[in-house]
C-alpha cells in the first residue's frame, strides 16, 4: 500500500474516532477519568518505554524525532485523565503579590494591563482570572487596558469567566462604576509615557466608544498618581520591562507582574531591586496564586501535565547525554 493511501486511511480513522467521541459528548456521556490503578499502569508503561529508548540509544540508534513528539503528546494528554492531588508550594514572590493586593483598602483603583495574546493565554489567562477575582472579592475597582491589541479581548474573556461565579454576581458589579475596559492603543512604551501625564489623552474613550469623561470610575483618574496599584500581565514587548522603566521608576506606581515563563527569569532582577511588588512566573505561578487565593482553576488542573512533561524532557536529555558519554568513552578506548 502506498504511503499516501496509509496517510488517508489514518486520517479517515482519526476523523471517525473524533466523530464518535463528539457524538457521545453531544448525547450526554460524562467525562472519562483514569482510576488510580490505571494511572499507575500508564506511568509504569511510560517509564518502561523510556528505559527501552535508553537501551536503543546506547546501542547507537537515536530514535526518530516523531517518536519524541509522540512521547511529549502522551506526557501532556494522559495526565489530563488522571486525578492525583498534588501539593503546590507557594513561592515568596507569589505571596508578595497576593499580600500587596490584600493590603489595599476597599475602593482602591487597580490598573491591570493585558499585554498578551492567545498563544500565551494558557499561562496568563488563569492569572488574570484569579487576580480579577481577588480584586472583586476585596471590593477593589479594576481599570483594564492593553498594549497588545488582543489584550482587551482577553480581558473580556477573563471578566466573563469571573462573572460565572455566583459570589461575584451577588456583588452586582456595574461596568463603568466598578470596572472598565479602556481598550488598546498602539505606541508601545509611548502609551505608558503619555499615561504618565494624562490617561484621557491616550484613551479618549473606552473600548466601546464611551467618552472617558462619562465613565464614573475613571473620570477623576488623571494619571498614575490616581491609581493605587497596578498588575501587568505580559508575554513580551511591550510589557513588564517598559512598565517598570516608566510607570514604576519615573512615576512611582506600585506594580506587580505576571509573566510567561519565557521572560519571568529576567524579572527577578527587577523583583530583587524592589521595582516589582510580586511576580507570577508561568503556569506554575498561576497555580501558586490560585492556591494562595484558595481558588482552584485551570492553572492548578494543568500542573500534573506540566510535571509529566518536564520529567519526559529531562529523561530525554539524560538519555541523550548517557549515549554521548558512552560513545565518548568508546572512542577514547579505541584511541588507546
Amino acid at each position, binding site marked *: 500500500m502506498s504511503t499516501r493511501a496509509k496517510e488517508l486511511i489514518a486520517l479517515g480513522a482519526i476523523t471517525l474516532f473524533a466523530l464518535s467521541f463528539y457524538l457521545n*459528548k453531544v448525547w450526554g456521556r460524562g467525562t472519562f477519568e483514569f482510576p488510580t490503578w490505571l494511572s499507575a499502569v500508564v506511568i509504569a508503561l511510560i517509564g518502561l518505554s523510556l528505559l527501552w529508548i535508553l537501551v536503543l540509544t546506547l546501542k547507537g540508534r537515536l530514535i526518530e524525532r516523531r517518536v519524541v513528539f509522540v512521547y511529549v503528546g502522551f506526557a501532556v494528554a494522559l495526565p489530563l485523565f488522571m486525578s492525583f492531588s498534588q501539593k503546590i508550594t507557594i513561592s515568596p514572590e507569589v505571596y508578595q503579590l497576593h499580600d500587596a493586593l490584600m493590603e489595599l483598602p476597599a475602593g482602591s483603583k487597580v490598573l491591570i494591563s493585558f499585554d498578551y495574546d492567545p498563544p500565551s493565554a494558557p499561562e496568563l489567562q488563569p492569572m488574570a482570572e484569579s487576580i480579577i477575582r481577588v480584586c472583586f472579592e476585596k471590593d477593589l475597582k479594576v481599570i483594564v487596558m492593553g498594549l497588545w491589541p488582543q489584550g482587551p479581548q482577553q480581558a473580556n474573556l477573563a471578566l466573563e469567566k469571573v462573572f460565572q461565579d455566583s459570589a461575584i454576581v451577588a456583588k452586582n458589579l456595574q461596568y463603568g462604576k466598578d470596572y472598565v475596559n479602556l*481598550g488598546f492603543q*498602539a505606541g508601545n512604551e509611548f502609551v505608558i509615557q503619555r499615561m504618565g501625564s494624562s490617561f484621557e489623552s491616550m484613551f*479618549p*474613550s473606552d473600548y466601546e466608544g464611551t467618552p472617558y469623561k462619562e465613565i464614573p470610575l475613571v473620570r477623576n483618574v488623571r494619571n498614575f498618581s490616581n491609581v493605587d496599584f497596578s498588575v501587568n500581565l505580559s508575554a513580551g514587548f511591550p510589557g513588564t520591562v517598559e512598565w517598570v522603566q516608566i510607570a514604576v521608576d519615573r512615576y512611582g506606581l506600585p506594580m506587580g507582574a505576571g509573566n510567561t515563563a519565557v521572560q519571568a527569569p529576567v524579572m527577578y532582577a527587577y523583583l530583587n531591586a524592589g521595582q516589582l511588588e510580586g511576580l507570577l*512566573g508561568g*503556569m506554575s505561578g498561576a497555580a501558586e496564586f490560585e492556591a494562595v487565593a484558595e481558588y482552584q482553576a485551570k492553572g492548578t488542573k494543568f500542573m500534573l501535565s506540566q510535571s509529566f*512533561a518536564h520529567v519526559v524532557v529531562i529523561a530525554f536529555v539524560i538519555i541523550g547525554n548517557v549515549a554521548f558519554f558512552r560513545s565518548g568513552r568508546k572512542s577514547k578506548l579505541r584511541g588507546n
Partner: protein
Amino acid sequence: MEHFALWLSAFLTLGILSFLYKDNPWYKLSEAVFVGISAGFWFVTLFWDNLVGKFWDGWQDEPMLWVGAALGFLMLLRLVPRIGWISRWPLAFIVGATSGLWLMNYLASNIMVQVQATIQPLFSTSYASGPDAGWGAIVGSLVIVVGTFTGLVYFYFSKEHKGAFGATARVGIFFIMITFGASFGYTVMSRMSLLIGRIDFLLGDWLGLIN
C-alpha cells in the same frame, strides 16, 4: 452554529499540528488562514482603537494630532514606489523617539537602579540597622554581589581574559550558565504550558473526554 465553530477550531488546530508529521496542504491552508485573519485583526483593531478612537475622537481637543496623522500618511506612501522615500521621515521620527526614550529608561532602570540594588549592606537588613542579617541573607547578598560583578567582568572584552582577570571572568561565566539553565528550564515550562492549553481544548472542549 456551536458545533460548526468547534469543528472549525479543531480542524484548524489539527491542521497546524499536522506539521509535526510533515509539511502538507492541510498545514499550508491553516497557515494561510492564520496569516490573513491576523492581518485583518490587526488592521481592524488599529483602525477603530487608534485611528478613530484616538485620532478622530481626540483631534478637536488636541489639534496637534493632525501632525501625527500627516506623519502616518507619509508612512503609508511607502506603498507607492516612486515617492516611497518620503516614508523615511516618519521612520526617522520613530527611531529618534525610541532612541531618546530608551537612552534614559535603560540608563535609569536597567543600569543605575540595578547597580544600586547590588550595592546593599551585606550584614544588615537596611542602612539604618546594625548587623542583623541572618546567614541565609548574608550568603544571598554575597552571591548577588559576586555574581553580578564577575558576570560584568566576563562581558568586558577589551582586555584579554588572563590571570586574575581571566579567573574572575570564569567565575562570571558560571553564574551566566546558571542563568541560561534557569531560562532554559522556564522556556520548556512555557512551551509545555502552551501545548497543554491546546490539548485541553481538543480533549475537553471539542471531544468532551475530560472535564
